[in-house]
């Protein structure tokens, strides 16, 4: 993955608009957060292979960026996106990596289903 170039990422996101696409969205502090730091409120969310059709997608802000997808009757967004790549399957993989390389957030868009 490379550090986000906003203009390029914007083009890529737009290329998935108005199509049925599979989404992976994840936020995480890691399962050990509460173990290493007593009293830490560990929250996160995960969806994978949910199909949506967004009409408008935007990259916003300086790095770490926010990425939002406007759906016909709803929204998806991710905050903290720093890295991206298009993989060999043509899937757009975006992630927010902390300084030491730990993933904190991921948003991925694909025309084909992700694995299990």
């Amino acid at each position, binding site marked *: *993955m490379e550090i986000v170039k906003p203009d390029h990422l914007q083009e890529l996101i737009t290329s998935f608009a108005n199509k049925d696409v599979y989404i*992976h969205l*994840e936020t*995480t502090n*890691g*399962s*050990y957060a509460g*173990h290493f730091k*007593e009293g830490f409120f560990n929250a996160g969310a*995960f969806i994978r292979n949910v199909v949506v059709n967004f009409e408008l997608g935007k990259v916003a802000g300086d790095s770490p960026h926010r990425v939002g997808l406007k759906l016909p009757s709803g929204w998806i967004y991710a905050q903290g996106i720093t*890295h991206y*790549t298009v*993989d060999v399957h043509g*899937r757009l*993989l975006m*992630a927010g*990596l*902390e*300084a*030491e*390389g*730990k*993933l*904190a957030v*991921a948003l*991925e868009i694909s025309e084909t289903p*992700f*694995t*299990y």
Partner: protein
Amino acid sequence: MIKKERHVLVIFPHPDDEAFGVSGTISIYREMGVPVTYACLTLGEMGRNLGNPAFANRETLPQIRKAELQKACKAMGLDDLRMMGLRDKTIEFEDDEKMIQLVTDLIEETNPSLVISFYPGLSVHPDHDASARAVVRAIRRMTESERPVLHTIAFAHNTAEVLGEPDVINEVSTVSDKKIATLNAHASQTVWMMREMEKKLQENDPEAIQRLLYERFYTYQWDKDFE
């Protein structure tokens, strides 16, 4: 002193769960000629270490960790690795009965005299606790005289309050090179920690030496069942 077993069945949810606390014990069993089956439930798909610069992404990580797991098994001399195909961080949401059946099938096939897994409720990660529940429930259903011994790992902060001190302590110094090779095999998860550990070992840090050379287990007590 580690005694010879008929067959050892190790059940953990993530590649590398075996590395810190069990890889020495597994290596010793293999050197004794004891068959060891390692059922690894997931490929650690949701691991957070991707590196910066990134060496992996969310979709390539499972294949990297699979190769690491295979390399780790080779380091331990373990030749019966089962990758069970579940997804990281979802074990507790699977059907409980399906999980019990998964363990039951493994036990019926391998007929172990010893099973090694986590202790339910004292293993910190939800996948650890969920795997442990399935293991305990599957063995509990067996006729008492046919049950394999169950050695568990527990490392929650309140472990000593609940279970006291571990009753099984395996000294694994004869295979410390294999243990270090196993830890290094899981590079995507351990490379930072190993740098630290090797430094501590060079300085003869007693805690690091203890951690490397001794593996600790609680024999599951059926008269003090967790549920």
